[in-house]
């Protein structure tokens, strides 16, 4: 009844939430457990009358009042010819940080790579994950075999399960300079192991890895307008 007689100034509420327009998701994204936990802790605090510091995320041990989980919007690369025999998977990871208005206030950025359950157990022991920062993309496209210039960030031997990477410096730089955000280059290398390949004829393990791989970026930001020092607010 209210809606029929009164047009709510929707943009006011959207602006309040930090949005430009009404989101129209096809489906709601899964909520990671850490966000659920923070939310539950806050609800418990509210119910008990406690007044926690809203600008500190106790569960993560960092300052901040906005938590975002950004899905990976990148794509796999399928080079016609493997650049080197050991390359199993290549993917560009891309996270759109344009929605972040709190310039220069990133307090935590954690990249999570979920490789799926026991993805590599039959691949053999010689396995390595390499994560690089794309500095100069060479015109991305599915036919592009490799990124242009990359800066190696980290390599992980024997990667399994969920891997977390601290990308605070990188994300803070992307937030300050959006043009620098050309994504990350992920490559999983596997040593050709004839025995293990022969024992896993049923399915290409690299294809299975491509299906199970899930990447996301958890970002915590601090809005200086809402998180002023207490003496300033007084």
């Amino acid at each position, binding site marked *: 009844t*209210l*809606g029929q007689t009164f047009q*709510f100034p929707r943009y006011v509420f959207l602006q*309040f*939430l*930090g*949005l*430009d*327009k*009404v*989101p*129209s*998701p096809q489906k*709601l*994204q899964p*909520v*990671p457990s850490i*966000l659920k936990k*923070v*939310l539950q802790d*806050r*609800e418990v605090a*509210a119910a008990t009358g406690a*007044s926690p510091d*809203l600008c500190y995320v106790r569960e993560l041990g960092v300052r901040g*009042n*906005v*938590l*975002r*989980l*950004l*899905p990976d*919007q990148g794509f796999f690369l399928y080079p016609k010819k493997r650049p080197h025999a050991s390359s199993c998977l290549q993917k560009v990871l891309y996270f*759109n940080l*344009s*929605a972040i208005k709190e310039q220069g206030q990133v307090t935590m950025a954690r990249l999570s790579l979920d490789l799926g359950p026991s993805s590599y157990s039959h691949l053999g022991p010689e396995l390595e994950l390499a994560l690089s920062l794309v500095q100069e993309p060479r015109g991305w496209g599915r036919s592009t075999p490799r990124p242009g210039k990359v800066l190696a960030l980290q390599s992980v031997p024997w990667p399994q399960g969920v891997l977390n990477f601290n990308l605070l410096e990188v994300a803070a730089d992307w937030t300050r300079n959006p043009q620098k955000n050309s994504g990350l280059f992920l490559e999983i290398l596997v040593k050709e192991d004839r025995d293990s390949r022969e024992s896993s004829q049923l399915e290409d393990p690299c294809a299975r890895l491509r299906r199970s791989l899930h990447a996301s970026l958890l970002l915590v930001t601090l809005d200086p307008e*809402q998180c002023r020092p207490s003496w300033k607010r007084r």
Partner: protein
Amino acid sequence: AAVPAPQASCKHLCHRHQLFINFRDRGWHKWIIDPKGFMANYCHGDCPFSLTTSLNSSNYAFLQALMHAADPDVPQAVCIPTRLSPISMLYQDNDDNVILRHYEDMVVDECGC
């Protein structure tokens, strides 16, 4: 000057009223993941001079009620939130980002004059 005590029944006195904001009613449940709504409440009611001392009133409300009683051109003291609490909201934006943000002063806990 003598101040006449106005007649005010208890239910018209300043106090907190329940107000539930249901996001489904507004169609926002499609992108607000949690909560589904929240009890925001609101303050409403009279702040008569005779009761300003017992209605969680500020000193200023007491004086304004006093002045109103003496001079009706001075507006009555008003019933306002005196204690508010925050809520956290989990929602999804147009880039499919899942966002948890805390908003201060969203729930009226107490009212006063």
